[in-house]
């Protein structure tokens, strides 16, 4: 039994902020009312004065690295990192070894998660067998086993005909196709955004068209097939313009971007910082502005972390050899709060849409709600806490955060999933 006192409840932009106490009994919210008084020896009281209480978050795109790369992360460590960041539902991408391209691996991931994860792990199946971009994988069988979407993330399905078939086929199973948009002929050998910084440092650049060319292609394919296309980790202004246009056309397209694309630019790479090497690469101020604008007007539906752990030794190499990716669960909320709410005046309730309502809608899941008789899935956030991202505080096995050394505002203090406390006052309890 948990009693949260003086909660500032925010369920999303359509609902008002509510000041009340929340009583949690077992896995459910039993009562929301002002000044709940209760006598119970097992009662845990959490004082939430001056803090926000949000429904817990859902991440549509992350990498847990199990099976195959457990030295970077495994289902357990990744889940704990997610929990630390306030995420209680996460979708893990299939680029494991072996990849999640058949029902047995889906079953394995689901089974492992049930054993070791304190949160909900939903696998994403591969579009093509072995992520090879040649033959469709057994999407139907995988759906039966529990996948919520398909994606060859990390790779782009370069064959347009195959992508078209994937969209058509996925429609039969009512799941979205999550597209990693990257024309590999354009991006080949590229290390960072093709632009000012690549010119200064002499690093081979990835032109922005590597992304937007495929965004345009996939939009046209989705228009024709009427399938649900979800474009992940959008990073450029042109991609946004194309998606905006597609939505006006009525194409069944949704998209996400990641915390680092709305907060950082290619400048982060100066000094050959391999932690700032991500794919797609960090772009420019103009792109950051365009993405923030697209969040405001709803063209961007949700935020994905693209949590991509890599071992320290793998990042401490020459720039070209370093793998792309940053860990992201634990900084996601604070980055969004710092760069959208604090800097750009976005309504804080919009974050609930980006991190709960919309990603769940895209995945055909019911949103978490802080209401009586709903599952107790919620987070308590201190908006006034300023903290510095430090390697030693990261819960994930890997410490390759693009935000290391950065100061962020707001902190996910307490996380409750199905009535269980996973994190309390900043300390992990699971």
């Amino acid at each position, binding site marked *: 039994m948990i009693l949260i006192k003086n909660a500032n409840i925010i369920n999303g932009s359509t609902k008002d902020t509510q000041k009340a106490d929340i009583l949690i009994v077992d896995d459910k919210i039993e009562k929301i009312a002002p000044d709940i008084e209760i006598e119970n020896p097992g009662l845990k009281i959490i004082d939430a004065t001056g803090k926000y209480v949000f429904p817990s978050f859902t991440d549509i795109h992350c990498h847990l690295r199990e099976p195959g790369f457990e030295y970077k992360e495994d289902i357990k460590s990744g889940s704990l990192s997610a929990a630390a960041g306030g995420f209680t539902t996460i979708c893990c991408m299939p680029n494991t070894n072996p990849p999640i391209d058949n029902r047995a691996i889906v079953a394995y991931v689901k089974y492992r998660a049930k054993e070791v994860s304190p949160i909900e792990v939903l696998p994403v199946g591969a579009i093509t067998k072995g992520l090879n971009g040649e033959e469709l994988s057994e999407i139907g069988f995988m759906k039966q086993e529990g996948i919520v979407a398909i994606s060859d993330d990390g790779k782009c399905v370069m064959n347009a005909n195959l992508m078209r078939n994937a969209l058509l086929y996925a429609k039969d199973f009512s799941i979205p196709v999550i597209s990693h948009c990257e024309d590999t002929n354009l991006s080949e050998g590229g290390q960072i955004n093709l632009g000012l910084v690549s010119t*200064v440092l002499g*690093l081979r650049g990835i032109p922005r068209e590597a992304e937007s060319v495929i965004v345009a292609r996939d939009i046209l394919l989705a228009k024709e097939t009427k399938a649900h296309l979800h474009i992940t980790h959008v990073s450029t202004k042109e991609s946004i313009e194309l998606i905006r246009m597609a939505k006006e056309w009525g194409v069944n397209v949704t998209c996400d971007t990641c915390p680092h694309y709305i907060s950082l630019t290619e400048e982060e790479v100066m000094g050959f910082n391999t932690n700032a090497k991500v794919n797609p690469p960090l772009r420019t101020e103009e792109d950051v502005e365009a993405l923030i604008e697209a969040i405001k007007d709803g063209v961007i539906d949700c935020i994905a972390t693209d949590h991509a752990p890599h071992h320290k030794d793998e990042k401490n190499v020459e720039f*070209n050899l370093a793998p792309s990716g940053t860990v992201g669960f634990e900084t996601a909320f604070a980055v969004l709060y710092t760069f959208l709410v604090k800097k750009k005046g976005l309504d804080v309730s919009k974050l609930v849409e980006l991190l709960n309502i919309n990603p769940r809608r895209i995945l055909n899941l019911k949103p978490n709600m802080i209401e009586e008789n709903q599952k107790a899935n919620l987070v308590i956030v201190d908006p006034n806490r300023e903290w510095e991202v430090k390697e030693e505080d990261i819960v994930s096995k890997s410490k390759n955060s693009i935000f290391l050394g950065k100061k962020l505002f707001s902190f996910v203090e307490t996380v409750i999933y199905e009535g269980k406390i996973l994190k309390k006052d900043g300390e992990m309890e699971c």
Partner: protein
Amino acid sequence: MKHLLGLRDLSKEEILKILNLAKDMKLILKSETKKTPHLQGYSVVTLFYENSTRTRTSFELAAKFMSANTTSISVATSSVQKGESLLDTVRTLEALKTDVLIVRHSVSGAAHFIAKNCSFSVINAGDGMNEHPTQALLDMFTIRERLGKLEKLKIAIIGDILHSRVARSNIWGLKKFENEVTVYGPRTLLPPFIDKFVNVASSLEEAVCNKDVVIDLRIQLERQKRGLISSKYEYYEFFGLNEDISKFISKDTLIMHPGPVNRGVEISSEIMNLPNCTIEEQVTNGIAVRMAVLYLCTRKEVN
């Protein structure tokens, strides 16, 4: 000066310090014995992941003229695939009591990466497409020696700017002395936003006309396979310092080239034989400049 990684992070004063010292070093080069004790007891290692007989020989001679113990390690880039990481190599060099490492690597930033992970001095002998600081320093030394000054000159750099570490180091270095730098080359070989740092000429004539210095760059013929140029014949016709263009180049204009030259691709033999062409002098000056750099990198700074 602990390391020499590039000219972008070097101040004008530091550059002048190197060039002034190189002048003294050149006197030693001209003497009969060509030996000084400046680096006696120091261990200088050259580690080249890319072949370059010129640069390596130049560095080795510079170190030997100053009485250093020198060793050279050739590493086929394939050893990276065999599992020996650059970091492991750095640790080995550390254990071998290296004082100065001269490194050439195909990856931009490799010299910076080593400097971040070691206690010895690192001299960048070319990292990917990033910088080749000693080449630019010897170019600047040659310009100053020939023209008597290094400031407020009109300088053109011709060729593959995109992939050229020589061009980058020269741009960063020359810009610190208020020189007007212009670049020209095929559009496919010009990096984006280069016009933020230098002028971009719209023709080869415009690029070479009324210049104090023309630096011509080596063209890698494998660019043809990557679809960046069509053929060496076409390159010579439109972008090479050929007979047609030579009439636009004043006889007072210094013509420079980092070598080795592709004759008849980026420059004609006739132009190479002109008295204002400094290719050979550049090689000699390279040793002097590298002696200066080695000297400065091995001095413990008092402050």
